[in-house]
């Protein structure tokens, strides 16, 4: 595999301009929601509301107020597919439509996807959605076509504050660690990296610099994002045990005769040879012949 590439998103310099959303829409020719009719969510400046089949980038606006509302903070974060090192969507995909590219990104091959939605249930970040138009799973492609032509992803190129940075993942991690040190030095002790280490699904190729708990940004804690296959064997072994117990119960039900001998038969049963061929006369003779 060629070098692994990724996104490093420094949320402390995001200004919520949504240039990344626009660039993503434009490059990937994503249609507008509601045929372009503007729909105000009432949730700050966040009218995109969530990642979806036509929104592969989503700038979150998180307004935080103290209880007496004398102090406030505005967090912004450009959310995207995390291109996990151990990607749950890729793991569960039954058709092989989801693959890992030479850039270590996770890519959905549209001609192979049949819209089973197993990847949606597996993604712990709520990234993947089914397209209302194409009826297949959709998410950020990491601008695979641009990468193949030595161009950075459209969102990273459009970001005016370098909140979204693209590059070789190891270099990005070093840069991010320095930035965290710098912020700590400036008194922002709550700055930390989310997904840069291997605690979440072996690491996220799109990792973040955050200044609050993951839940504040709508992200799961590291223990909440799980690899789907972890429960396959424990569940299967329990099911096998249940099968044995079930079979034993049925065996006893069909072999225990003691009580039946004493019970008077209320209905008579015809011999099998009689009622097997009883529907049409003459067939039995033909069989025997």
């Amino acid at each position, binding site marked *: 595999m060629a070098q692994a590439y990724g996104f490093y998103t420094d949320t402390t310099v995001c200004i919520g301009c949504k240039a990344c959303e626009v660039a993503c829409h434009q490059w990937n020719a994503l249609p507008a929601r509601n045929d372009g009719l503007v729909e105000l969510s009432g949730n700050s400046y966040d009218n995109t509301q969530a990642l979806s089949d036509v929104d592969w980038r989503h700038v979150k606006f998180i307004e935080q107020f103290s209880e007496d509302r004398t102090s406030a903070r505005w967090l912004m974060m450009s959310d995207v597919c995390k291109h996990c090192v151990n990607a749950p969507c890729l793991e569960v995909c039954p058709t092989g439509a989801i693959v890992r590219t030479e850039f270590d990104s996770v890519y959905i091959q549209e001609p192979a996807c049949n819209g089973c939605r197993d990847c949606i249930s597996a993604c712990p970040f709520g990234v993947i959605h089914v397209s209302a138009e194409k009826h297949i799973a959709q998410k950020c492609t990491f601008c695979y076509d641009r990468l193949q032509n030595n161009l950075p992803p459209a969102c990273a190129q459009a970001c005016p504050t370098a909140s979204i940075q693209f590059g070789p993942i190891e270099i990005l991690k070093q840069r991010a660690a320095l930035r965290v040190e710098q912020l700590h030095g400036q008194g922002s002790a709550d700055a930390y990296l989310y997904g840069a280490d291997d605690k979440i699904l072996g690491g996220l190729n799109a990792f973040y610099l955050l200044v609050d708990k993951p839940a504040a940004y709508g992200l799961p804690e590291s223990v909440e994002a799980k690899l789907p296959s972890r429960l396959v064997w424990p569940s299967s072994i329990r099911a096998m045990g249940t099968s044995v117990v079930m079979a034993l119960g*049925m065996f006893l039900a069909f072999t225990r005769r003691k009580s039946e001998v004493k019970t008077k038969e209320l209905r008579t049963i015809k011999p099998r040879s009689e009622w097997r061929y009883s529907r049409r006369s003459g067939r039995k003779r033909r069989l025997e012949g």
Partner: protein
Amino acid sequence: MNLHVADPHWGVWIIAYFFLGGIAAGAYATAAMARLFGKRRDQDGVRAADYLAFPLVCLCGVILIIDLNRPERFWHMLMSSQTLMPIFKWWSPMSVGSWGLSLFAFFSGLSFLAVLVEDDWCYHPRLTWIYKTREGRLGKLISLVGLGSAFFLGSYTGVLLAATNQPGWVETPWLASLFLASSASTGLSAIALANRWFFREVSRSVLRHVERADRWAISLELIILCIYVWSLGSDNRRILFSDLPGWLIPWVVVPGGLLLPLALMSRHRRRGMGEVAAILVLTGGLILRYAIISIPGSLVYAHSLRDS
């Protein structure tokens, strides 16, 4: 509990598939057990299962294809669309399940054909080979492997749900066992109903065998349901069962779909009680699947409302 996920919208078709597939698996497993260990009378008594399993699993196939957003690509589940080679990912329950469903369709199809020939619905001299699949060592072997495929079909749906990141599905590894026990109880209830309504030649003692097996399956389901609820932990229990649809499990499924049928079965000599018990078990099985499949969607929706 991770509430930051997207809803896969596995709705009415998937609920129907889990329910009907469970009945088919439970019914076939009963017939296979009767063929393996029962007397001739038992084998005749559960032939309703042979009539039920294959049509139901065919219906399941149709349902699954309809539920796909690109139904014309259903074959991608079994074959790679690029290489046209079989695709099998043992670590993906949906991939394994597609093969398991096909295997079960094969075995239940054999039984269906055999019972059609035996009961003279489609007799042809060239079809007499089908008897070999019912009798002798080959018959036992086919019943044994078919039994395995039935247990697989009854349980893999629970593994499929557990192998996700959806709240309510990933907190415990007991879903597969729960679905298996429920598939057995619903399958046996379906046989009991079919015997009472359509197969009147079946003797009372065979009916009692089926009912005894059903009581066993319902009791096992009740025990596993308790283990499932316990294994969730107190915090998750409070979240999952305090509101609809999770609320249905402790307050509808347990009393109406398990305890009441058990009570009725112990008094089955009263006319019609057996039928009522079987209908309650089937209804309980359907509600159980509806509740479990719908839990993540409702939790995620409630969470998104709170967020906005």
